């Protein structure tokens, strides 16, 4: 199925990887598409006086001058302000090679992984032949299962979950165990008391009363909405009153300075 319109065009462009899902001796050729789009409000930094966009530069702390790329190495901070350096060659040799495979280790119940481990999702589409793809998708959907395995994307290896969503296979990269804190390490959690039966019954009743269907579209980013509204107004030429910085600050500083000098003299 082809997606219509702009979203579809962008998603077809958004192929970031192609390879095969390998389950034992079975191979499912797939392409990986971007699925998550960060739509939060972003701003560019401009030069206030001429409106020109600004760029970043790497400045040497000691010499206070801009350092060109060829003179930059990467440092691993062993202790504060103490570094071990690495060359690009060394780092490249240490990085895993992408072998164009999503290696599946086993199938699990989708709900047995806590969302705390979910990192980022990608849409999988069939590459060339779609029979194997349809078969894997149908099997996962029917059995309510998901596949776990690993993938190397660019230069990083991730644990992944392959699952079905809205009639497609979706790959979600997972965080490593050591990246997620265990709540049992918190004293408040370990020391939680068992609630009394009557209390629990009441709580259950409230949960039942407030139960409903989840609809993510009910949630809005109010900051984004406000900014978009302001952008609309600004482009229409309506004025927006910004608090003006007082040009008298130097004078104010002198007043504060005299007061401090008086206090210091008293000591």
């Amino acid at each position, binding site marked *: 199925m082809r997606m219509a319109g702009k979203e579809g065009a962008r998603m077809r462009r958004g192929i970031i990887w192609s390879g095969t899902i390998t389950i034992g001796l079975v191979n499912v050729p797939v392409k990986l598409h971007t699925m998550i789009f960060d739509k939060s409000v972003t701003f560019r930094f401009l030069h206030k006086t001429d409106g020109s966009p600004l760029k*970043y530069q790497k*400045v040497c*702390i*000691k010499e*206070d001058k801009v350092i060109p790329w060829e003179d930059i190495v990467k440092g691993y901070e062993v202790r*504060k*302000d*103490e570094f071990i350096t690495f060359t690009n060659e060394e780092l490249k040799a240490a990085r895993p090679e992408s072998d164009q495979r999503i290696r599946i280790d086993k199938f699990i119940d989708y709900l047995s992984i806590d969302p705390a481990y979910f990192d980022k999702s990608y849409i999988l589409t069939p590459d060339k032949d779609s029979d194997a793809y349809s078969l894997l998708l149908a099997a996962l959907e029917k059995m309510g299962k998901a596949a776990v395995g690993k993938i190397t994307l660019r230069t990083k290896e991730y644990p992944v979950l392959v699952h079905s969503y809205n009639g497609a296979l979706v790959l979600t990269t997972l965080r490593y165990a050591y990246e997620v*804190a*265990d*709540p049992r*390490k*918190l*004293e408040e959690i370990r020391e939680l008391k068992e609630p009394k039966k009557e209390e629990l019954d009441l709580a259950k009743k409230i949960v039942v009363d407030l139960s409903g269907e989840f609809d993510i579209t009910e949630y809005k980013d109010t900051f984004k909405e406000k900014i978009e509204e302001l952008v609309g107004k600004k482009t229409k030429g309506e004025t927006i009153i910004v608090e003006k*910085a007082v040009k008298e*600050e*130097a004078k*104010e*500083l*002198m007043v*504060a*300075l*005299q*007061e*401090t*000098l008086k*206090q*210091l003299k008293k*000591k």
Partner: protein
Amino acid sequence: MSERFTKAEFTNLDKVLYPELRITKAQVIEYYIKIAPKMLNPLANRPIVLTRFPNGIDKEGFYEKDAPLGTPSWVETFKRYSETARREINYVVCNNLDTLLWLANLAALEMHMTLSKVDSFETPDLVVFDLDPKPPADYHEAIEAALLVKEKLDALGLVSYVKTSGKKGLHIILPIIQGYTFKQTREFVQRISKYLAKQTQLIAAERSKSNTSGKVYIDYVQNSHGRTMICPYSLRATPLATVSTPLEWIEVKKGLNPEEFNLYSVVKIAKNPWKGLLDNKQKLETK
């Protein structure tokens, strides 16, 4: 026009250094002018290390140990080999209002000071318990841990002083008599931390990544030659322009929020909780 009052020159006063609150360099300088009567005393005769944010806190700042090029001749400096940096450093020493304001104009938002003074640089006159809550632990845990440290120091007959780090942590300070080595003060802090870590899950005395998360780590290594701590009343490069604020112990209790102490609020505090700190030199029980 400022020459009548200070040797420091003020430039780019309109520059926004804290974008979230739209705080300009003029406001930062004004803050340091107003806080100077309380800040200068603990700072006196100590080498200072700067973190400068000339383009505001959302741009990369830089850490500056040496007095920068173009340091005016009237600014005092102190040359000494640093064991931490493994080279000779030409430190800035801030002994007067002019130097403080010159630093403020450099957008040296954060000023860090050593625990020893220039006249006896090898031996500390301050001991610091640097309480650093490791996520998901937060300032609530730091406050709880600070009260336990204080209780223990009280039991040893030691008078301690406290300040917010300006971030999530708290610093507990003991002024001490001259003559202890950094090794001795470090071991003293480590001994007390280890003792407390045995008493409560809340406190960690060793830095190992696996088991400090959710705990308050007492970084005893801060008590080392050449190491620095954020100066009392220094601003921090945080979105809310927080300040490392000296507090009275009675204020350190549940509900205290270190984020409430910032560029605007701290200058309104009339009292000086650290008054007399440097005169209250104490003996430590060391091994």
